[in-house]
C-alpha cells in the first residue's frame, strides 16, 4: 500500500516540472491570454495609452495590475449596440439610453463607457503567430484608417496585437464586420483552424 502511494506521489510530482508555465493556471475559457502581460503594460504606459478594447481575459489583469491607470473594456456589448443602431432602434448620441443598455453588462459597465467615449482607444486582439496581416488590420486598411501596431508574444502559437488608430476613433459599434471576425474572442475556443477558414470568405 505504501509503495503504491509512493508511486502515485512520484507520478504526480514529476508532472509538475513538466507543466507549461503559461498554460497551467489559464482559464479553460481562454488559454490564449498572456500569462505574462508585463511587456504589454510597459508599452502602453510608455506610449501613454490609457484606454483600449480587448477581451476581458486580457483586460481585467491589466486593469488590476495597473490599478486602473489603464482601462481595458470588452467591446462585445458595444458591438451588439451597433446592431441596434444599424437597425434604427438605437442612437449612439443617446447617452442615457446607452448607459441603461450597458448597465445590463454585469462586469464593470462603467469601464465600457469610459473606453467608448475615449479618444482613439487602442485594440488588443488575439492573432495567430503566422497571421501577418489579420482581418482587423485589413478592415482599417479598407477604411483608410491610419494606425500603429505592435505584436507581443502570448501563449504558444498566439500573439497579442496592440493596434492604435491614429487618424480617427474606431468604434466597435461602427461595423458588423467586427462581430464576423470575432474581434476580441479567444481563437482557441473555436478550434485552431477556425480563423483561417472562416475569415477567408469575409474579405
Amino acid at each position, binding site marked *: 500500500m505504501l509503495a503504491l502511494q509512493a508511486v502515485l*506521489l512520484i507520478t*504526480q*510530482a514529476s508532472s*509538475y*516540472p513538466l*507543466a507549461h*508555465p*503559461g498554460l*497551467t*493556471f*489559464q*482559464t479553460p475559457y*481562454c488559454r490564449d*491570454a498572456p*500569462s*505574462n502581460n508585463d511587456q504589454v503594460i510597459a508599452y502602453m504606459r510608455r506610449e501613454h495609452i490609457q484606454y483600449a478594447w480587448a*477581451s*476581458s*481575459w*486580457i*483586460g*481585467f*489583469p491589466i*486593469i*488590476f*495590475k495597473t*490599478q*486602473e491607470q489603464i482601462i481595458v473594456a470588452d467591446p462585445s456589448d458595444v458591438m451588439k449596440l451597433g446592431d441596434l443602431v444599424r437597425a434604427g432602434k438605437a442612437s449612439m448620441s443617446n447617452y442615457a439610453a446607452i448607459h441603461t443598455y450597458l*448597465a*445590463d*453588462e*454585469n*462586469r*464593470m*459597465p*462603467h469601464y465600457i463607457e469610459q473606453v467608448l467615449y475615449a479618444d482613439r482607444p487602442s485594440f488588443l486582439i488575439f492573432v495567430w503567430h503566422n497571421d501577418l496581416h489579420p482581418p482587423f488590420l485589413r478592415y482599417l486598411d479598407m477604411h483608410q484608417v491610419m494606425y500603429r501596431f505592435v505584436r507581443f508574444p502570448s501563449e504558444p502559437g498566439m500573439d497579442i496585437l496592440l493596434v492604435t488608430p491614429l487618424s480617427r476613433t474606431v468604434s466597435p459599434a461602427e461595423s458588423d464586420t467586427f462581430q464576423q471576425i470575432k474581434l476580441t474572442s479567444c481563437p482557441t475556443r473555436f478550434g485552431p483552424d477556425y480563423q483561417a477558414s472562416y475569415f477567408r470568405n469575409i474579405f
Partner: protein
Amino acid sequence: MFDTKLVSAKTSSVTPKISRISWYTWPYCPLIAALMLALLLRVILFIHAGGVMDGDEALVGVISSHLTQGVQFLSSSPPCVCVDNISCSRCKPYY
C-alpha cells in the same frame, strides 16, 4: 473513607496509561507529512507557473481593491460577479 475509595476508582478508570505512541506524534504523522508535502509541491508549482492570473481572478482583485478604498455601491442590491451564467439574472451591475 467510602467516598475517597470511590473517587480513586473513578479517577483510575478514566485515565488509562497509554503504552503506544499516538499516530499523530513524530515520526508517525503521515497526515501532517502528506499535508506538508502537498503544500511544498503546490508552492513549487506556483513558482514554476510565475503567478498567472486569469481575468476572473483579476476582476475579483479589482472589486476587492475598490472595497478596501471604501467605494460606495450605487446599486441598491449588493454587487455580485456572474461567473457561471446560472445566477446571472439575480446579479446587479457593479459600479
